[in-house]
């Protein structure tokens, strides 16, 4: 197993350098070869980890030892092999999609860099999950952050990309800082960098370690309020990169959270409530912000925040139920959270890739300028529809299969016998249901405005279906959505969990049967079909301008939730005369207030800018001052060293 896995990893490494070695050949061939190597490497890795996961075998291998403490090694248990299978599989489909996708846009040189960085990014994510040492974990974690940052900056000339890049880079380093703190705290008490269960930490330190872990991984996963980089970064990145970032990289953070909070440190009850609260807020605000979004990729990015919220809710419920010793709800929520991790990876990368095809075909990310694409790009439309159904938690697809487990866990909280906790659960349940319903509304909007009715712009009217390569990757994922949903009960019992979830197979068979019966009946009747125009109360010609826009569609919901959006409608008028009868100028505006950006991020940034300005003032001095600085530093160092040693 280890051999297969390691040969897969070396193939990935080979794929990183190939585009540069093979510079003599035409770039396209070099990229193709590199991607083929990447595909075969991923196939090896996925097979190896799936076998590990299904057989329950553990494999441990030391790779390289820097010092006895700082080593690179790999360790597969069922949790890490599950995540590696997920990463491998989704990356495989993304790589398949990349074959044709990377040939559009950008310069020749940049495409080569993109091809080279893609395997590095995937490899680093796999190695983070495989690492059995905090040093190795952090090393690959940083490679993952930097390679994803470079991939994201593909269109680096655009101001939008630069803004997103700064947000992403600062936020990701902010998160890593907290990881450093957490790991050093753990090291301080265990004297080892190995990732293994410990109870050596005193109560207070353990709590601090948890907070640091939560902030560190929460930033990477995009839990509100650490989410702001996510919509910016995902929308400007090339679509295959956004598929990987949203589908896979966020899951690596979830892995870290599971590993360090649940495995290394034993969870306490209040952690559960923290996870539940932040998860619920992320899920709800994520979808509410998504409803307002007109940028197709930003909309999907906000849905990533929502789905990460769902996963974190599941993890929080697990901690709470586990504390009260209720085995079935605890297992339901943990398996539900992990299953949703897999499902979100599958349908979100599917959606990002099909959205990428749409963006490429129409040349815009603004959904108000799309429309009518179902006729131009029928296969993409069907694939996007399957993804939309899955993310809206419609049975019998996979999104529902995992969300029902969390619902079921919530509903079983009547066994808790603790009124206060139960009330909290009920409120959480209501928020969860609201989130789920809003997600469905948002995807009716997204699918309807992008694909249905008439094209709303000339570009959309000229769009053409993308090539086969860009359909194959998403098609595999769409099929997986269906299989994971319909056979969810069989899969869950297959891996050894006996949980009270409904069997979706008979439901799906009956659905299919009834559809076939009615379709057959109508065929028998031979109803005559006529194509005519849309009824418009006798209007002469229906134009796309008469259709509802995305803004119009979500307007009632925005009005109902105006407290959250903080929409302000203003209508200013200037008049020619004092009696205010002849208007000179009117200005009507609808603005939304970006709470997190304007109230938290920007004030913090300004604060740091001020501190930096203060320090740079002190830099601007003569030689004597600098000698004083040096003297003070040495004295301080000596005192500290003497105190410490």
């Amino acid at each position: 197993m280890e051999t297969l896995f390691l040969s897969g990893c070396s193939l990935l490494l080979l794929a990183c350098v190939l585009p540069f070695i093979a510079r003599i050949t035409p770039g396209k061939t070099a990229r193709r070869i590199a991607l083929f190597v990447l595909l075969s490497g991923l196939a090896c890795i996925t097979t190896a980890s799936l076998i590990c996961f299904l057989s329950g075998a553990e494999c441990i291998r030391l790779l390289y030892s820097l010092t006895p403490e700082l080593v690179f090694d790999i360790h597969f248990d069922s949790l890490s092999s599950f995540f590696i299978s997920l990463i491998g599989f989704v990356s495989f489909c993304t790589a398949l999609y990349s074959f044709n996708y990377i040939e559009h846009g950008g310069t020749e040189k940049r495409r080569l860099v993109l091809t080279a960085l893609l395997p590095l990014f995937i490899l680093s994510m796999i190695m983070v999950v495989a690492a059995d040492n905090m040093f190795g974990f952090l090393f690959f974690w940083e490679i993952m952050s930097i390679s994803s940052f470079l991939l994201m900056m593909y269109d680096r000339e655009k101001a939008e990309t630069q803004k997103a890049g700064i947000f992403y880079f600062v936020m990701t380093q902010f998160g890593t800082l907290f990881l450093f703190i957490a790991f050093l705290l753990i090291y301080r008490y265990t004297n080892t960098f190995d990732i293994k269960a410990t109870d050596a930490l005193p109560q207070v330190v353990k709590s601090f370690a948890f907070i640091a872990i939560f902030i560190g991984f929460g930033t990477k996963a995009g839990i509100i309020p650490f989410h702001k980089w996510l919509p910016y970064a995902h929308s400007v990145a090339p679509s295959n990169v956004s598929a990987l970032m949203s589908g896979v990289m966020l899951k690596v953070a979830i892995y870290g959270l599971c590993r360090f909070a649940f495995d290394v440190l034993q969870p306490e009850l209040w952690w559960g409530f923290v996870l539940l609260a932040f998860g619920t807020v992320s899920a709800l605000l994520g979808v509410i912000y998504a409803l307002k979004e007109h940028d197709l990729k930003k909309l999907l990015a906000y849905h990533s925040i929502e789905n990460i919220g769902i996963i974190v809710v599941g993890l929080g419920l697990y901690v709470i139920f586990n504390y009260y010793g209720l085995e079935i709800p605890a297992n339901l929520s943990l398996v539900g959270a992990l299953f949703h991790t897999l499902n979100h990876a599958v349908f979100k990368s599917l959606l990002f890739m099909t959205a990428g095809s749409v963006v490429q075909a129409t040349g815009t990310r603004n959904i108000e300028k799309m429309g009518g694409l179902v006729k131009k790009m029928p296969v993409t439309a069907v694939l996007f529809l399957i993804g939309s159904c899955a993310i809206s938690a419609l049975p019998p697809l996979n999104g529902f299969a995992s969300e029902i487990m969390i619902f079921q866990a919530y509903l079983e909280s009547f066994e808790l016998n603790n009124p206060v906790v139960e009330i909290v659960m009920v409120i959480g349940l209501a928020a969860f249901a609201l989130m789920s319903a809003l997600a469905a509304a948002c995807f009716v909007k997204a699918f309807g405005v992008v694909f249905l009715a008439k094209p709303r712009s000339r570009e959309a009217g000229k769009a053409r279906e993308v090539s086969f390569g860009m359909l194959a990757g998403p098609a595999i994922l769409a099929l997986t959505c269906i299989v994971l949903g319909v056979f969810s009960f069989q899969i869950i019992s297959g891996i050894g969990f006996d949980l009270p979830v409904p069997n979706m197979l008979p439901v799906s068979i009956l659905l299919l049967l009834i559809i076939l019966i009615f379709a057959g009946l109508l065929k028998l009747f031979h109803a005559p079909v006529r194509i005519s125009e849309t009824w418009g109360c006798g209007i002469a010609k229906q134009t796309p301008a008469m259709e509802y826009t995305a803004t119009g569609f979500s307007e009632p919901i925005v009005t109902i939730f105006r407290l959250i959006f903080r929409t302000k409608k203003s209508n200013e008028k200037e008049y020619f005369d004092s009696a205010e009868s002849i208007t000179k100028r009117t200005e009507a505006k609808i603005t939304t207030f970006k709470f997190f950006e304007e109230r938290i991020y920007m004030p913090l940034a300004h604060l740091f800018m001020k501190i930096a300005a203060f320090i740079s003032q002190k830099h601007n001095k003569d030689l004597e001052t600098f000698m004083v600085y040096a003297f003070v530093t040495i004295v301080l160092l000596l005192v500290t060293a003497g105190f410490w040693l």
Partner: protein
Amino acid sequence: MNWNMILYTVLNTTFVFLFAPLIVSLIKKVKAMCQGRRGTPLLQTYFQLFKLFKKEIVYSDNSSFIMRISPYLNIAFLLVASIFIPIVFIPAQESGFGNIILFLYLMVCARFFMALSGLDAGSTFGNMGSSREMTIASIIEPTTLMACAALAFILKTTDIPEMFGTVLSGSILQYPTLFLVASSLFIILIVETARVPVDNPETHLELTMVHEAMILEQSGPKLALMELSYGIKQLILMAFLINILFPWGMATDTTLSGILISVASFIIKALLLAVAMGVFESFFAKIRFFRLPDFFMIAFFLSFVTIVFELLS
């Protein structure tokens, strides 16, 4: 799937399928009589469906496959959902059909595709209907879930046939809080079936419609399927309310007499509820769209209070 389950599935869906249009006409009749009119005959909905099945289908030239498949999906999702609500007899527990969440989400599925088909033709009416429908859905669903949670807390199960069985074997007086949930279920019933305080199915202005506006572009047999699925949705939600409160007469085994008694008793109860709904509708005027959340909050509050009662007792 044993034979008992297959028999149940066939009988239950056939009954729902055949009986649903009658309830639609009955409510119309009651409303007409409240307004001092004679109203249409009770079998009018059947005639209407039959007429539609014979007509041609007209599609808009803007429309796509969504318009064509959504009637099939709608009726399929709702007929499968109807299996979750036992009417003819309560089947054995290990059936796999009965999870309350799955039941709700099957109805969400039907709504999802109906809203998409409203957007398909590019008609402003359909768009408006879909937009409003999804808005209403997103505020009523937490309420529905809350009512379901209340039921799960009271009856200690999430399986619908088991819920009916529990109430049937005990007495409604053992679970007085069920009446509170039932009132919120009644509000949910009104909302989900697009009735007067929320939506008016009989208005002559498309601008004020929600449900009817969405299916405006459907025609012929496809419209018939849409109308039929509306009737089915109404009937299964009524059956849910009826059987949670008064499951008297429901058979738990498969004897012919048992099935006949449960069907007969259900028909009587359903007719009474339909009359009540018709009368209720006649007493109300339509609420302004943005005042609807207040109306839903009543239902939400009732369910929440039930849960609090249940927890403290």
